């Protein structure tokens, strides 16, 4: 059903008159031209399309516009603040925690939600949080190291979701 959808996207208000059953992934990529959020499986099985909705990591391929009405969305493009990369982005770079890079936005945003919940995550907490994010290049080891480094960098403090 077409309706007026409003949400905050990377800190800025967005209004769309759209079919509210459309999936957020395609609206982000097509209507809003934010292609950092990737399609990987279409069934919430791989995590490539992960974005933050009110701080929670959700799979945008299975999230309708209706579900994000009046919510706050952060995509990979919105993580850096005033040109300053987020500690997770820096840590992924400094640990070479990526190869082809296709799963990277989803990995970083899933880790972001984890650190909001557990500022000092244990190895098991990292694995549990990241388990459904798939990477075919095999960067897993370095992704775990990057998340640890970012947690340390962020001082192990609770941060804003």
């Amino acid at each position, binding site marked *: 059903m077409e309706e007026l959808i409003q949400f905050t996207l990377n800190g800025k208000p967005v209004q769309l008159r759209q079919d509210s059953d459309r999936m957020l992934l395609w609206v982000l990529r097509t209507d809003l031209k934010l292609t950092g959020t990737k399609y990987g499986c279409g069934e919430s099985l791989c995590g490539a399309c992960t974005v933050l909705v009110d701080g929670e990591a959700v799979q945008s391929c299975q999230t309708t516009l209706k579900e994000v009405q009046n919510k706050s969305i952060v995509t990979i493009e919105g993580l850096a603040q005033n040109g300053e990369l987020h500690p997770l982005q820096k840590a992924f770079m400094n640990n070479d925690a*990526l*190869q082809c*890079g296709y*799963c*990277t936005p989803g990995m970083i945003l899933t880790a972001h939600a984890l650190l909001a919940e557990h500022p000092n995550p244990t190895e098991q907490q990292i694995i549990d949080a990241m388990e*459904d994010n798939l990477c075919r290049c*095999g960067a897993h*080891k370095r992704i*775990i190291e990057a998340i640890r480094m970012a947690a340390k960098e962020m001082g192990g403090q609770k941060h804003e979701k």
Partner: protein
Amino acid sequence: MKNDDHLDFDFTEGFIDSPLSRRKFLKIFGGGIFIFMTVGEMPAWAQEGSGRPSRPALPTDFNAFLRIGEDGRVACYTGKIEMGQGVVTSLAQMLAEELDVALESVDMVMGDTDLCPWDMGTFGSMSTRFFGPPLRAAGAEARQVLLELGAEHLKLPADRLAIENGVIYERANRNNSVSYAQLTQGKKIARHASGKVPLKSPDQFKIIGKPVFRRDAYAKVTGQAKYAADIQLPGMLYARILRPPSHDAKRISLDLAAAKQIAGVQVIEDGDLIAVLHPYPDVAEKAISLIKALYDTPTSGLNEETIFAHLLKVAPEGESVGENGNLDQGVQQAATTFEQTYLDGYKAHAPMEPHSAVVSVEGDKATVWPSSQTPFRAQTEVAKALGIPAGNVRIISPFLGGGFGGKSANRQVVEAARLSKLAGKPVQVAWSRQEEFFYDTFRPAAVVKIDSGIDPNGRIAFWDYHVYFAGERGSLHFYDIPNSRTAAHGSGWGSEPGTHPFATGAWRAPANNTNTFARESQMDIMAAKAGIDPVAFRLNHLSDEKMRRVLQTAAEKFGWKPAAAPSKRGYGVACGMDAGTYVATMAEVAVDPDSGKITVKRVLCVQDMGLVINPQGATIQMEGCITMGLGYALAEDLRFTGGTIHDLNFDSYEIPRFSWLPRIETVIIDAPNEAPQGGGEPAIVTMGAVIANAVFDAVGARVLQLPVTAQRVKEKMG
């Protein structure tokens, strides 16, 4: 890759079908110093010196070149592509080293068919191995030219000059200097690399051999990196294509009425190609689901269990890969013989980025952004599909979201090209995950039969090796065996129709995963029977110094204590050789006695790959190989009935996850004076065998089929 930076080039000269003369070619680029190079063998049409019709228009007597521009920046133009393996970094390192410029001032322009000379594609761990040496030579040659110009400019003999960061200066007076940028101003110098300028020796290296972080990481952590499906052109339509339920299916009816009802949907029917186009991909997706089509689906009934008997039945005669000694004599000398059959099912590439392409056809020209390991092949295919000369097709290679051998066929590129022509608009074809699994060129199912024997002293007396349909890469053993024969029956792909139920193709280290699994399992079976430690058994049959060294290094770093298997420790070992690189891998596993479930606790891999350009990049490739290899070792096995594929997404086709991760250790042997060898594939080849051998060591269960699943372990445990 800075393709976007070069989109504004003015190609008003137009490209003609026959190759451009070098003079004309140079016109495209303005000033600078150009060094042309020839890497490996040129394609036959180029060697003949005749521009084959419909070939790309670039000059054909070289296949890569570098340019030092008037701004002092260095650009390397190559048809290779970056797909995560890191050549965008390692190739730039080599160039920066020989040229004495900062790594940051080197741009890699890759996979653009208008700017880069012809290249066969990126696979086989060849970019660094074969491209590296001529690239370094070209860099050295360019440095020489600049040094001569600098000497002239400063009016000093070259031996009183030094170069650092693109600045030539007088050794005795550093302020007396001139930069590469100044020297190239208003000049146009072109040379073909002669190979006569000496390369730097390892003790002079400042950039080669030093760990360097990925150069494309910033773009990838900020979401700025553009993959093919991220390309959006004005007026572009997203296509969904009607797919059959099976590779065997024949369509018997078609009803497009409901799809046509959706506002804004354009339905295209062109022979076998039925597609819907819409400005939104999700609306196109909805429209395609409304098409009613009925199919007749006869099926061979072959499945992942029965495929092996079928393959043996249709296998052609073997072709000899290698022979030595006398097999009959060897059999006579054997006290114990071992006849085993090893099985390996189909594996999907499953890159995280599905196949995609954007094509814009305008008149008799086409511009293409594909996810492809073979941009020049895509160029030819698009030209053929559109009936235009290849020179009219420009392929621009965006970032590639994983390839592993699976992005060489370009089916989606041709689909997008046909649809763009028919729609008269730019079209994007981006496969769903289901299409990705359906149209994958799978790693072929294969069988290996080995008959071998040991003499009373525990020495291998003979080795008779037959591989069916994996291919011959990695089939030849490297052990000291007096009598042996190795034969390959059929290759990994391009087999006769009726061999495989669907397409097969190269999969990271093609054939070698299957071959190494079989060979190294057989070695362990013989060692166990002889009551000899599997590392000692291998060393007893190894005179190849490099292989001895990687194996001994692995044993030392792993803390391997000799014991005959099964020792109950869950230790495994496997050796392998791929793309010129030597690998020894050790693993520790735990096996649940009730379920047979395997936990891989530790994997250590030692590799001798000659000169290492970027140790950081090489290490990451090894880690990637080990992690990806866990998938085919433990879980990946495509399920199908005839041409119907049952595993179409990640819910049933399992690939490695974070919880699978063992402790991973990697060691690279320091060999700076040896030629660089392959790095993207070798470490994966040992993963099947090392897990199978470790499982045997843990619980005495010998699984002869990949993947080594809990169920198969349980069956063998009895």
